[in-house]
């Protein structure tokens, strides 16, 4: 126990010791590699050769292979890059150098690589040291270089840290690395809340109830999760601290559902029907009602806040069919956002603040759409002819959208870019997976 704690402390110290390499001094901070307004039209060709093994030992070579593959895969996951096949390389990276002065960039531009990542790995006593560098091959410039040191088990974390640096240098945004996704998994008739890493790795079960759990929602510091559970026989709202497991329950008469945390605050909105009609209320993080936000005879459900916390989008059937509305929280004024189709639900406000993703029904199929918050241009349909697609959730940098889909039969969680490209299954557990909810950017625990 003590030993475990000790190594953890050592590790934290080590990974915190991330040095800017000497060459970073030449770096320019502003690069125009990825046009964030439409970044997925053209993928940037990037080469990620296997890292150089310093001592050449078998274990080191294995780790180099593993680390460089993970780096390629993780960068590919973002949707920004086209990873160049290692078979197409003109040189043997093992024999070439990894620092700018010794790299012949013509070998890389020659195969179309616009970016190159080189790495070296040194293994000693279960501790790895990695030096990773990102180059612009055409300019022959180092964009970013970092050194990482830590226990072997944390290689994944180190690689993802570097990915975060790469994305930050290329897009100016911190990216998705380090974020998690909460979701619902149904197994042997019960639905429980699970968490996994942004790329579907390491799924872990959070609730263990023989009932139904639904709609997980992250607080903006990613320390709390709120969700609906039938563990006491009816849909109640559970607010839970992820580490300490303490929290509160809102178990009023009727339904206590669809929580959404207010950005930067320890308060959340949820739909309660104790009054006899479902209305959205603002609650404290301890489950006390602050105020009633909606007041309408119809169904009001599924709140989602703008990133500045000034506005709230939600679903209401006040016009006769479920549509998405936006409320200005100061004035209480409500404006209808969606007019296409007769069934638009599950709004999710983008982290950039300018878009809302939602699930809309048309021709008996449910698809994911994205619409500008000003409502002036028609919604963009992101999924097509691929089963029912529901519960869109933006990645913390707004570049990706996770959602649930029945395209392959059982309901699973998929990921696509914000423009609907690169749709792929995130993870497949036994049973069915629904209700994905992407966490805020960094979870450090």
């Amino acid at each position, binding site marked *: 126990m003590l030993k475990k704690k000790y190594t953890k402390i050592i590790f934290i110290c080590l990974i915190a010791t991330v040095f800017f390499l000497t060459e970073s001094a030449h770096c320019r901070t502003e690069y125009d590699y990825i046009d964030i307004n439409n970044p997925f039209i053209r993928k940037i060709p990037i080469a990620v050769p296997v890292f150089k093994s310093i001592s050449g030992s078998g274990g080191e070579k294995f780790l180099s292979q593993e680390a460089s593959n993970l780096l390629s895969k993780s960068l590919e996951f973002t949707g920004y890059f086209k990873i160049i096949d290692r078979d197409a390389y003109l040189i043997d990276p093992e024999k070439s150098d990894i620092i700018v002065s010794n790299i012949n960039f013509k070998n890389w531009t020659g195969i179309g690589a616009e970016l190159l990542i080189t790495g070296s790995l040194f293994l000693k006593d279960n501790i790895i040291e990695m030096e990773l560098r990102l180059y612009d091959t055409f300019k022959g410039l180092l964009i970013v270089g970092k050194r990482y040191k830590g226990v072997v088990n944390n290689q994944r974390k180190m690689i993802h840290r570097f990915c975060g640096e790469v994305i930050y240098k290329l897009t100016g945004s911190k990216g998705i690395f380090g974020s998690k996704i909460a979701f619902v998994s149904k197994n042997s008739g019960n639905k429980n809340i699970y968490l996994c890493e942004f790329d579907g790795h390491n799924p872990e079960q959070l609730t263990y109830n023989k009932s139904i759990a639904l709609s997980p929602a992250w607080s903006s510091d990613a320390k709390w999760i709120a969700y609906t559970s039938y563990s006491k026989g009816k849909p109640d709202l559970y607010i839970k601290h992820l580490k300490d497991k303490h929290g509160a329950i809102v178990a009023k008469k009727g339904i206590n559902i669809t929580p959404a945390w207010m950005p930067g605050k320890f308060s959340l909105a949820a739909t309660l029907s104790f009054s*006899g009609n479902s209305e959205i209320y603002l609650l404290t993080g301890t489950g006390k009602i602050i105020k009633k936000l909606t007041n309408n005879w119809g169904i009001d*459900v599924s709140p989602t806040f703008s990133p500045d916390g000034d506005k709230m989008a939600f679903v209401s059937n006040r016009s006769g069919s479920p549509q998405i509305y936006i409320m200005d929280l100061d004035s209480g004024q409500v404006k209808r956002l969606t007019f296409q189709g007769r069934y638009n639900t*599950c709004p999710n406000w983008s982290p950039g603040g300018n878009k809302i993703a939602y699930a809309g029904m048309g021709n008996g199929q449910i698809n994911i759409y994205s619409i500008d918050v000003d409502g002036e241009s028609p919604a963009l349909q992101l999924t097509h002819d691929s089963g029912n697609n529901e519960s869109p959730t933006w990645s913390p940098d707004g570049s990706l959208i996770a959602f649930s889909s029945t395209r392959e039969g059982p309901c699973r969680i998929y990921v696509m870019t914000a423009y609907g490209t690169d749709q792929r299954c995130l993870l497949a557990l036994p049973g069915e997976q629904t209700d994905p909810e992407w966490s805020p950017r960094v979870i450090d625990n």
Partner: protein
Amino acid sequence: MKKKLWIWLSLLLVIPGLMIVTSCAKKTVKVDLAQTQEDEAAKLAAEKAKLATEKAKQEEIARQRALDEKRRQEEAARRKIITARNLFMNENIYFDFDRSDLKPETQEILKGKAEWLRKNPGESVIIEGHCDERGTNEYNLALGDRRAQSAKNFLKDLGIAKSSLTTISYGEERPADPRRNEKAWSKNRRAHFVLE
């Protein structure tokens, strides 16, 4: 071989027996009058006693029959109560897609349920609201709640105590028919009544 031996043995026993019976018969000729009268009286008494037991037997049968009849009636009444109770629980009300209003035939069913509840004032009901799988989970939870609420409000308006009516929405979580077609969906858009 053994079988044959047995037959011989039994014949040896039966034949002397028959001879004794025939010799006795001859003796009755000598019985005098007094003896005969005595016999007559005994016979009458025996007959009377026989009649009495017969009558008692008949009465017992009648009593049993009446008891059975009563039991049958009680059973039928009980069955009727159970049937009415089961009907109350098994008869769902159905809704159109994305609707929570009560159709005329639904209102008739609810009137029947209200009548039953009036006759059984001690009962409390849980009204479950359900939806078909189409549409989204979150909205369906609210829609299921609204369906259960519509049924509750209707019963309340018919004079049923609010305190005996609870609602619970299951959204699309508990379909009655898991298949994916209009027939299954129409069965799943329902309110179901459970007696506590």
